[in-house]
């Protein structure tokens, strides 16, 4: 009996190995390793890693560039997450009723999401071209002055955000469509019998019922906006004058451009702490909110 128990334990472990080996190598071990690296000074090449305690963190907190990075990150998160959710919700409301061409609209609006970010960012950098690009041509047509989209520190972040929102709005729309589809029609009918207007029905019935989706999207989109890299790399490389340099981009530059591994690791730790805190918050709130499915 004991032998068979042992054998079944072994078999189960064997089943987990194909996933656990790469997970340990490329996920769990690096996670521990980056904590260690954040307490050292290293340049990738030299055989010694000098232990420096909390110096890397102290250096970060004394670095004005880091605070600019934090500000850009915050702007990027707010400026991408909220519009993606708002546009997605608006479109979902319009498309939630059966209407002719609905499937066609849905397809067009969702399509940017499947395309490679690098390739579509290149297309957008052509649209943003200052002399003959489409964006400035449209501005000219309205008698407005052209903008140097990617070279003007006041506009570069907006330009990157536009691409980001364009790419993901359809994705959040699909989530909202599913959520709105799950709202029980009797609730809406009951509200209607009570004399509720369209807006009132939406605000008092639909919106509270889809709040788990809103919350889920908020967390997932925030975490993914903290990790945005491709479009920034193609469009602005963090410039001009650091106006699009997010924390992740800062991390990338200090690791693979300046070879300041310790400092980069400290930034990574801050990013990880931020994301884990957000996820934990979401689990905690998720447990407290009532699910209707």
């Amino acid at each position, binding site marked *: 009996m004991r032998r068979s128990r042992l054998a079944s334990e072994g078999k*189960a472990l064997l089943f987990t190995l194909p996933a656990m080996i*790469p997970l340990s190598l490329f996920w769990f071990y690096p996670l521990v390793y980056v904590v260690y690296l954040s307490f050292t000074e290293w340049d990738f090449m030299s055989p010694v890693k000098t232990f420096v305690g909390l110096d890397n963190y102290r250096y970060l907190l004394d670095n004005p560039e880091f605070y600019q990075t934090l500000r850009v990150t915050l702007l990027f998160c707010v400026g991408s997450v909220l519009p993606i959710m708002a546009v997605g919700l608006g479109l979902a409301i319009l498309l939630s009723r059966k209407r002719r061409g609905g499937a066609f609209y849905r397809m067009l609006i969702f399509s940017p999401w*499947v395309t*490679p970010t*690098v390739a579509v960012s290149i297309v957008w950098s052509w*649209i943003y071209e200052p002399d003959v690009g489409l964006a400035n041509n449209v501005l000219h047509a309205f008698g407005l002055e052209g903008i140097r989209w990617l070279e003007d520190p006041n506009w570069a972040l907006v330009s990157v955000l536009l691409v980001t929102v364009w790419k993901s709005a359809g994705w959040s729309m699909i989530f909202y469509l599913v959520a709105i589809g799950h709202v029980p029609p009797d609730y809406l009918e009951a509200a209607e019998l009570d004399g509720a207007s369209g807006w009132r029905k939406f605000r008092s019935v639909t919106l509270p019922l889809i709040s788990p989706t809103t919350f889920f999207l908020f967390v997932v989109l925030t975490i993914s906006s903290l*990790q945005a890299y491709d479009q920034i790399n193609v469009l602005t490389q963090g410039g001009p004058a650091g106006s699009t340099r997010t924390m992740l981009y800062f991390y990338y530059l200090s690791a693979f451009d300046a070879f300041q591994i310790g400092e980069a690791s400290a930034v990574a730790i801050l990013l990880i702490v931020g994301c884990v805190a957000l996820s934990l918050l979401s689990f905690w709130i998720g447990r407290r909110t009532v699910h209707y499915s």
Partner: protein
Amino acid sequence: MHYRSGMRRLLAHLLLAAVALLMAFPFYWMTTSALKTNDEIWQFPPTLWPHSPLWSNFADAWDAAPFARYIGNSIFVAAVIVVIQIVNSGMMAYAMTHMPFRLKNAFTALILVGYMVPVTAVYLPGYVVLSNLGLLDSYAGIILSNSVSIFSIFLIRQAFLQVSHELVEAGQIDGASHFRILWTLVFPLARSSFAVLALITFIEQYNNYFWPMLITKNPDLQLVSAGLRSFFVQGGAYGLKWPLIMAASAFTILPLLVLFLLTQKTIMRSVNLSAGASKG
């Protein structure tokens, strides 16, 4: 009343049509720009459709950089990763749902922690690991480091939770091994989740840029995004040969749009499933 609702419907249609046009227009603009001559593309006002479409731009762009190689690399790497993830996610999810073992809770917690950590934040230590293993600049490195996805594991686990223990026990009574039960009894029941896994993973890996770009310097190993980006930046292409750049972007993007057209339903359903998977 009737009149008002008619107006409203029209307004909704106009709004939707405007947004849909806006979303799709960059793809249209890419295609027409790819067909213009270098003179026409600098013309003001711009033409909506080129005077004489220059289809040869596509052939020229295709030859200007090893795009066949890049796209081949992307398809090969993505396909291998899909197969590996089907196997390891299936086995892991099966162990988590239908095999009792002592470390189960510990493993589940560990994976949950992994789910919360942003991948990009561990790229630096991951790079050091890969370099210590001597796997930088190799297909093995790209494939191995992408060979497991926590999302995929959760997705399949969610599907396997719906499969009854009785089915597994019946298989055991018939003398089938767990391996056999997994792939002949449980797998077919969860095949729609596996289809979603395959499709989403394929798209994700085909489009993958940041990590593969970090760990491969050899141009022969570049995936299509990195290859396209170096064509964009180098070789005098930057800002000078827009038609060729747009043509190259077009043949990178169009296969995905076609794939999307063919598998729309599965892809959109994946959104549903992914919400379920991340609720744990």
